[in-house]
């Protein structure tokens, strides 16, 4: 499958460093970034924010039959992570032999995201590691 250079490039900061934004008016954080704060509308004062990468597992599911891009990774786990700063983020939870459970603490690690064809760009990004 293709990884388009332009779309990959635009998301590098977001994917490498978990950069979202926070509304300075009501202190709500967003990931991915929003243009307008859900609470404040026209009064929103959004600023970029790099999240700590620490969070809690809200829910997770084990993928046994993967889409083609993840064919070499199956079985693997994806989850909804509630970041300490508030936003809910979807992401892969790596298998580091620690138990994956709802309410479990996680932090981000830097990994390859998918299996690409030989001539394609490699997509690097955060995944979550159970602590």
């Amino acid at each position: 499958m293709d990884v388009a250079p332009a779309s990959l490039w635009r998301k590098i900061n977001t994917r490498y460093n978990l950069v979202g934004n926070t509304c300075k008016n009501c202190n709500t954080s967003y990931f991915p970034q929003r243009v307008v704060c859900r609470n404040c509308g026209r009064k929103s004062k959004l600023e970029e924010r790099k999240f700590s990468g620490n969070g809690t597992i809200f829910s997770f599911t084990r993928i046994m039959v993967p889409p083609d891009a993840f064919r070499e990774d199956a079985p693997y786990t994806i989850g909804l992570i509630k970041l300490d700063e508030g936003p809910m983020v979807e992401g892969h939870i790596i298998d580091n032999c620690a138990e994956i459970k709802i309410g479990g603490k996680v932090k981000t690690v830097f990994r390859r995201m998918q299996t690409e064809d030989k001539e394609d760009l490699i997509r690097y990004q955060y995944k979550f590691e159970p602590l």
Partner: protein
Amino acid sequence: MGYGVYVPIYRIRVEEIAKVWNEDAEGIKTSLNIVEKSVQDKDEDAATIAVQAARRAVSHAGIDAREIGAVYVGSESHPYAVKPTATIVKEAIGTGNRVMAADLEFACKAGTAGMQMVMGLIDSNMIKYGMTVGSDTAQGRPGDALEYTAGAGGAAFILGKGGSGNIAEILKTVSFTSDTPDFWRKEGASFPSHGGRFTGEPGYFNHTISATKMLFEETGFKPSDFDYAVFHQPNGRFPTNVAKQLGFTSEQIKNGLITPMIGNTYSGASLIGLAATLDVAMPGQKILVTSFGSGAGSDSFAIEVTENIEARRGSLVPVRDIISKNKTYVDYSIYLKHKKAIKKE
């Protein structure tokens, strides 16, 4: 200024590899002085390992990553043939765009070559801080002797004129370099080739000993002036033998001898050994480091630890804890899957 080490959690034992090839595990463990080696996860490569180590180094150094003016990444398993690993690392630690960056390759010594380059930039006041990384997911042809030792891991060092932030000072560095065809891999080849018995004497031993002696001559130091010594460790036996030949004791090298537990991490090996030594070194102690890269060359360093080292340990996880806690064993078939040797077409 600071350092960070990352080693994947997976291990494969010598016995497991020996079983597949019907070889004598005990004999190999003794002759190579190796117990097990590290294996990367399916989604890890030299770039992800470099990033993990680099982030730990930034955190240990306690500096703003935007003040890092140079990032060099040494590896012989860069994920791309063309497209630098250094740009991935610099983006993932957040240096900003005003930064010099390049990938280096010199078999197992590209990480220490990067250290020398960063030293030059700092001494000439071109940058405030610079980072060098050595990171590899080393390849060994299935069935080859290298398969028992080719590991995965990396280390990152941040250098700078840090004053009170300095944990150690590099007193002197020299290199001994020659064109020696002891080990090579051409573009497109999956596995390296080597000169068999030719690799040891004219390669590893000649260069390691020559560079170290050159350092002694130019500084007046002798082995007994050092509290610790770290040599490149393609297996557990070579550094032990070279230390003896140079007049170092096994006590001096034991802290920095990590390969028996994780295998040869190539560009990472000498730097991980140095990091493990800095984990335990006390103020005023001296460390000798001599790396080796096939092809061939050795970089030798005389390092003195400053009084800041203990205060700066703080939350730093020692190398020996990184490699001994949270490890998990894989069998040969899982190992091949992690090495991406099995391809589903």
